[in-house]
């Protein structure tokens, strides 16, 4: 891996995970990812963030291209999650840094991850600065963005914000900068990342964005810990984050289903046809094909979620239970929902799905619809009617949002 000088005397020394499939085991990363780490060459040579344990030698070699390991003075740990800290025990042993900087919560998190009482950890508070020589680092606590320990590091001399997981995307590439990629693709990957990792903390995102604005920080480069570095589209990614955090929705509905003998699928298809005729943009996603993280990626800007599952052993099908559990945890706000499904003898699934959605704060304007075994034309007309009513609700929701 080539090291890249991203600003004068600031080098990307991260690693590329070309072949990862499942990011942290819950969100797909089809384009791979990177674990970005940065080495600042100054009077105090400082490493910002690390990489997973399995890439520890790569990070070591990257650092070694610039300095002898023992020349490293400081390590800044913006976030203790293992993909940015797993290599730390190895790197700390090799480099013996004079100090390791982290947030108040970072100190606790380092202790409970690595159990190393001998590390020279120094807590930095929100707004505190340290001098590296010619360059300074100002720390900004970014609690719950997306862990309690998260902080950002800002280097005013270079107008550089090292932003931990915020503004990241799962993209493995030998091209490290935003302007070397298609912007639409980057924003769509940033949305997928945001929805699956950061969405539950949208309130904190809004607060942090406001604080950065009010602080008057001049930023012309944002370096997240995953994916490409923003230098030509800083404004685009910041406004995209404002939009993600505000959970702005479009006249779009995600129709998600699992089915055994295609009755629930037929019902949902009839509902979707009617929605399309009303001008709603729909996605029709089988959970046998689409991973829960990809459904959420699509749901990110959709006004409505419609779930269909037949009743199986007095409940919903297991893939639907997986999806709904995952969806609920991400706490989407201000959405419309509906449920339907076929059944053989008991028919609990539509109500059970609706219950999860109600508990998640969805507006559920229609009663769950169930059909015994195989739907007739009349049943499908009922599904269409649901689609038309929901389309109306979606349009109301979207117009109230822009009004």
């Amino acid at each position, binding site marked *: 891996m080539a090291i890249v000088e991203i600003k004068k005397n600031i080098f990307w020394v991260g690693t590329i995970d070309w072949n990862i499939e499942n990011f942290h085991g819950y969100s797909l990363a089809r384009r791979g990812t990177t674990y970005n780490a940065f080495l600042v060459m100054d009077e105090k040579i400082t490493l910002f963030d690390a990489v997973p344990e399995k890439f520890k030698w790569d990070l070591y070699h990257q650092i070694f291209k610039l300095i002898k390991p023992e020349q490293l003075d400081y390590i800044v740990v913006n976030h203790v999650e293992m993909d940015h800290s797993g290599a730390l025990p190895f790197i700390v042993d090799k480099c013996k840094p004079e100090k390791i900087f982290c947030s108040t*919560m970072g100190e606790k998190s380092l202790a409970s991850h690595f159990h190393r009482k001998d590390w020279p950890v120094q807590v930095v508070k929100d707004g505190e600065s340290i001098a590296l020589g010619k360059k300074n680092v100002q720390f900004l606590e970014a*609690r719950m963005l997306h862990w309690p320990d998260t902080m950002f590091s800002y280097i005013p001399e270079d107008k550089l914000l090292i932003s931990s997981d915020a503004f990241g995307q799962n993209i493995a590439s030998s091209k490290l900068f935003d302007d070397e990629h298609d912007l639409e693709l980057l924003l769509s990957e940033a949305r997928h990342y945001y929805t699956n990792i950061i969405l539950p903390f949208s309130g904190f995102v809004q607060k942090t964005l406001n604080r950065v604005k009010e602080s008057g920080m001049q930023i012309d480069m944002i370096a997240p810990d995953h994916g490409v570095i923003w230098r030509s589209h800083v404004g685009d990614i910041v406004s995209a984050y404002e939009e993600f955090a505000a959970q702005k929705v479009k006249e779009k509905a995600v129709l998600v289903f699992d089915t055994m003998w295609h009755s629930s699928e037929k019902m949902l298809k009839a509902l979707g046809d009617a929605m399309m005729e009303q001008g709603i943009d729909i996605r029709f996603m089988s959970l046998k094909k689409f991973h829960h993280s990809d459904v959420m990626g699509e749901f990110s800007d959709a006004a409505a979620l419609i779930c269909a599952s037949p009743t199986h052993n007095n409940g919903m099908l297991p893939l639907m239970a997986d999806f709904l559990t995952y969806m609920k945890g991400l706490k989407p706000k201000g959405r419309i929902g509906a449920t339907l499904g076929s059944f053989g003898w008991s028919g609990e699934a539509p109500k059970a799905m609706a219950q999860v959605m109600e508990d998640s704060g969805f507006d559920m304007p229609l009663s769950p619809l169930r059909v015994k075994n195989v739907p007739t034309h009349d049943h499908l007309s009922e599904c269409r009617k649901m689609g038309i009513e929901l389309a109306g609700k979606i349009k109301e929701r979207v117009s109230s949002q822009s009004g």
Partner: protein
Amino acid sequence: MEKWVCEICGYVYDPAEGDPDNGVAEGTKFEDIPEDWVCPVCGAAKDNFAKEA
């Protein structure tokens, strides 16, 4: 009445407001909140709260 801060995420429990979404009426002292109540923001247990300084 004293406010309490979640030491995990920074949420502040204000007794004047309570946490009505989760069954805690306004005017409820922190000490009187049921032990199984959790931080409405991050889900941390009640023993993660400290009195606001």
